[in-house]
């Protein structure tokens, strides 16, 4: 199953974030996930103050990890990440781009006049 998982981490100096990221990815791989890609979406002010692990954060680094994993591993991944103090908010989401796109025909015009009067037989 294809997932991607976005997480925000506390802003820290470069080697520390690198070590923390390495830890999380190793945890992923321990649970049988195959990591495809890791992206850094930058360090930004969070859109709202988030409190996690008895601390409040207003700035964070955003990371996006693509991986393949069995669906049963998701729970254990989330549990492991919620315990990590560096990670502010872990999220695992099904990979949206691998889902099929159904053709949408648009808004079908419904003939409303037929619905105006009920077609039940009246005595």
């Amino acid at each position, binding site marked *: 199953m294809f997932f*991607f998982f*976005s997480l*925000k981490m506390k802003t820290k100096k470069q080697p520390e974030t690198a070590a923390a990221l390495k830890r999380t990815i190793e945890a992923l791989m321990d649970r049988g996930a195959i990591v495809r*890609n890791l*992206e*850094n*979406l*930058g360090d930004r002010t*969070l*859109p*709202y103050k*988030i409190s996690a692990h008895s601390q409040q954060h207003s700035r*964070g680094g*955003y990371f*996006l990890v693509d991986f393949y994993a069995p669906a049963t591993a998701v729970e254990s991944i989330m549990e492991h990440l919620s315990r990590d103090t560096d990670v*502010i*908010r872990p*999220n695992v*989401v099904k990979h*949206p*781009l691998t*889902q099929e*796109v*159904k053709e*949408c*025909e*648009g*808004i079908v*015009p419904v003939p409303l006049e037929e619905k105006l009067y009920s077609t039940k037989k009246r005595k």
Partner: protein
Amino acid sequence: MAALVAVCGHLGRKKLTHFVKAAVFLTDPGTHAVLWRSCSQYKQVAGNEDLLLSQFISPFTGCIYGRHITGLCGKKQKEITKAIKRAQIMGLMPVTYKDPAYLKDPKVCDIKYRE
């Protein structure tokens, strides 16, 4: 449009703005003919396109616009609402206001603000 929206999902934030802005400029505003709108345009809504999603929320309160304002069909409205809620909970998009960087967007929804 489809290709643009799909690719945007995985680019870094700074690159996003160029692509999706171009995408939305293609559509032409004006007539209230509801059929052409939306469904064919936004083929797929991935999780983290803040620019696209911010166009469907109010800049003052951050509420998601209803179907009568966006003019989207059933399926797409649901998809966009779900994507907005997901982005808000994941901490990618603000909830009670619209990110000030996106205030100067091309208008997609049918809403008129009081001056």
